[in-house]
């Protein structure tokens, strides 16, 4: 470049910028909806024109147009690249969303999942042509049952909540096989919302078990509620307050004595993988979120995978398909008609589950090895405790440490400041952080649940701690400037959720009003 005559100093350029002509701001582009771009007749995929005879369409040929916009490939690519830049992601920063285990997603996993031998095979092609895929699933099953100390595993559930349903349906089937019709499921009040929702979906009534002032499930209250009508308890362990249930063995015993089953929500397995086996705790069924503990990407809200490990007692009721291995190799038993033993409760979904996630999870496991999985859990727990220890003097921790892989705070440190948990979270956005989980669990007021995972360096944790310490200090000092109206430096300021819910606009139409014309 010719620098002749080009000013290179920046003096006097720091004043506030006027609004831009384009509405974009440097690297931050405003981007309309795909439906507002493009033109008729354009396409980004080259396909031939083909004449179609009506004779085989059963008189059902489409009459009207669909209404899709037409764009070339570069326009589509630019549109979605611009959208991507409006998202926070693990790859760009610490993502301490409690209960979600936002750990690093290795790209090796992505590469392996795209091997044609896994990605380009059909669920119903002859089983002898997919022996490698079945071997992979079998190996993943071995890892899951070994790490959990459980008897067997059902691979088809598609996410955590789907796994919960799978576990409860197996429990239901086991009860029926015993000739019992137990109706109640006990769920701690600190549980994830999916637990009671799943119990209701599986046809049970839900009864809440209170928490103690120490953040544990009230084991005495639980035992008092057990009876001949209780089918199961659904317990998250470590629990959503970030604590291991100290009386879990006692509770498991009481549950067993009462003839009920112990369902464990495995969302927090990342705290204990490689150190504690749920099978040793008396668990009968537990789902494992492969997208949490085993690093498959969260993808903006899925896809996940929720395999369910079973105790020996529940194993016979696991759903179809069942993977077996004999002299002829691996084989899926897909239909009841082909069963030799067992009494599966049914089928969770079409085909065999989230193969793409299985490949990624196994790539992660093989990379870590059993020693690495254990080290990862230890680092996750260490990092959470480091945050707890570094913040508990300026923020309020409702329960004394040590915690497991999540550090829980309530909003009492904000008492009298006028700053809410929500304000505090939004101020974190301006500081370049994704906020922690807010207002969950419900058992503490204004909850802030921080899960750093094992993926952060100490320097990263220290920066995060520093920012939170300063924010807490400013809130207490009555300096609300950083909180009122935050965030300011995100692609959007706070969004009006009330308006969205009052008169829902859930799709684009030609007539969708532009923002400022409405109301």
């Amino acid at each position: 470049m010719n620098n002749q005559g080009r000013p290179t100093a920046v003096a006097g350029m720091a004043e506030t910028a006027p609004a831009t002509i384009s509405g974009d701001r440097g690297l931050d582009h405003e981007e309309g909806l795909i439906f507002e771009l493009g033109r008729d007749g354009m396409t980004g995929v080259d396909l031939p024109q083909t004449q179609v005879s009506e004779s085989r369409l059963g008189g059902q040929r489409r009459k009207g147009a669909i209404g899709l916009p037409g764009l070339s490939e570069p326009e589509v690519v630019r549109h979605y690249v611009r959208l991507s830049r409006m998202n926070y992601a693990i790859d760009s920063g610490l993502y301490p969303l409690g209960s979600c285990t936002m750990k690093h997603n290795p790209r090796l996993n992505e590469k392996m999942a795209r091997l044609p031998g896994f990605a380009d095979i059909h669920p119903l092609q002859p089983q002898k042509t997919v022996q490698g895929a079945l071997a992979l699933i079998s190996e993943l099953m071995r890892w899951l049952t070994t790490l959990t100390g459980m008897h067997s595993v059902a691979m088809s559930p598609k996410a955590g909540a789907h796994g919960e349903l799978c576990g409860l349906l197996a429990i239901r089937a086991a009860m029926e096989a015993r000739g019992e019709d137990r109706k109640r499921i006990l769920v701690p009040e600190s549980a994830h919302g999916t637990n009671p929702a799943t119990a209701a979906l599986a046809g049970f009534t839900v009864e809440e078990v209170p928490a103690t002032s120490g953040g544990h499930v009230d084991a005495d209250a639980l035992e008092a509620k057990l009876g001949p009508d209780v089918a199961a308890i659904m317990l998250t362990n470590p629990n959503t307050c970030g604590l291991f249930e100290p009386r879990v063995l006692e509770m498991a015993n009481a549950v067993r004595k009462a003839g009920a089953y112990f369902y464990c929500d495995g969302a927090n397995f990342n705290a204990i993988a490689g150190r504690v086996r749920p099978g040793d705790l008396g668990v009968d069924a537990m789902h494992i979120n492969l997208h949490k503990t085993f690093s498959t990407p969260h993808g903006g809200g899925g896809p996940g995978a929720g395999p369910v490990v079973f105790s020996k007692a529940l194993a016979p009721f696991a759903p179809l398909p069942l993977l077996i291995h004999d002299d002829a190799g691996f084989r899926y038993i897909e239909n009841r008609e082909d069963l030799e033993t067992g009494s599966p409760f049914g089928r969770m979904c079409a085909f065999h589950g989230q193969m793409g996630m299985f490949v990624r999870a196994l790539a992660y496991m093989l990379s870590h090895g059993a020693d690495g999985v254990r080290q990862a859990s230890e680092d996750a727990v260490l990092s959470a405790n480091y945050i707890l220890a570094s913040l508990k003097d300026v923020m309020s921790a409702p329960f004394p440490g040590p915690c497991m892989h999540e550090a829980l705070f309530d909003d009492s440190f904000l008492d009298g400041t006028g700053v809410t948990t929500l304000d505090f979270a939004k101020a974190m956005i301006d500081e370049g952080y994704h906020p922690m989980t807010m207002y969950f669990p419900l058992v503490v007021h204004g909850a802030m649940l921080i899960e750093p995972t094992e993926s952060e360096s100490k320097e990263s944790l220290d920066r995060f701690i520093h920012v939170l310490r300063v924010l807490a200090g400013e809130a207490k000092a009555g300096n609300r400037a950083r909180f009122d109206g935050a965030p300011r430096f995100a692609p959007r300021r706070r969004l009006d959720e009330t308006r969205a819910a009052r008169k829902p606009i859930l799709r684009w139409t030609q007539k969708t009003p532009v923002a400022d014309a409405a109301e």
Partner: protein
Amino acid sequence: MRYLPLTPADRAQMLAKIGVPDIDALFAGVPKEAIVSRAKFDLPDTQSEMDVERAMARMASRNVTAGSVPFFCGAGAYRHHVPASVDHLIQRSEFLTSYTPYQPEIAQGTLQYLYEFQTQVALLTGMEVANASMYDGSTATAEAVLMAQRLTRRPKAILSGGLHPHYAQTIENLAALQGTVTRAPVTPGSAEDIAALIDDQTACVVVQSPDVFGLIRNLRPVAEAAHAKGALLIAVVTEVVSLGLLEPPGTQGADIVAAEGQSIGNGLNFGGPYVGLFATREKYLRQMPGRLSGETVDAEGRRGYVLTLSTREQHIRREKATSNICTNSGLCCLAFTIHLSLLGEEGFTRLARLNHARASALADRLAAIPGVDLVTPSFFNEFTVRLPQPAAAVVDQLANWGILAGVPASRLLPRDEAAENLLIVAVTETVTDDDCADLAAALKKVLA
């Protein structure tokens, strides 16, 4: 270990700050008897990226990939060409490594593509509103049945004999808890009198079109019969490309549409992850399961998007929620949305016509083989033929010759004599004329 940034020195400093002597002290809350040693796990130790790659590539090489042979399998999962830019874009870190858009100010990318996805699904199906996806077509269908049971406060679901058997089993698994499920007899390639089964206890009728054998069904009379008795019609689509050529369920009177969206943007992946499409009428919105992205404004009046109507959902409503679903199929929606945006109206309808034309040509070719009959008089890109002998053995033999000839109906309907000789054959734009010639020649040979 390459994924773990903490050094031994970091760990020591952190333990010191916490005020404990070692890591074991942090697990003090765990009962002693529940702590296990490393020795208890008969599993390998850490491996390098290269070693993992080698081990996994070895497993992958033991599978016959669809792209390496003449390939005709369908029955609910279809092999289409996905443009390279789709897979590139969905691997952008900001899409791949974010989660559910709980903080809308820093998740507009996700919220906007979900809003675009919802719009595309509503347009394709001819419905008024769509959600931000379910796990897959089968679970979307089961949720649709539960929704119909809630809306009508009636117990009974009637399933068409042409509904994919896996879908029927998925529904039975759930809906039988709240009511009853009746399956109409399987009548491959011919109409069924499902209207006769509808009574005043019927919540819904579930009809797939094109059905599992490929037959295109007329939904209008079923919708009329259902509505006359106060029941709902749930239309199921497992091959969403068909909507580029066929009348959408929405204009035929469907109340809920549940579909498998895998065909657009997503590979076969041995059955998952896929993406469930779910659309309905606006008046039923409050009973719809799943997440919704809605338009709103921010504090400066700029248009933006948020998750909305979450009072239907489990994290707010707990046991009173419309569904227990939480994580859905975000990234698969994105792949769907990008692929469909690339296609546009012109590309999508061309794709649909091309699929039908190819399938039609192969159907003629196979039906000309002595002993082979075309069972489905109408179809989109998948049809069923009756062979003079059990189809499973034929498929097995053809696989030995390097041809994946389709799905024998007996794989889905075991011990059903009427299904034993039926072969379900799918033909998409990825199938070449040579592939078709190979299949016809091999079939002729095996049947000779």
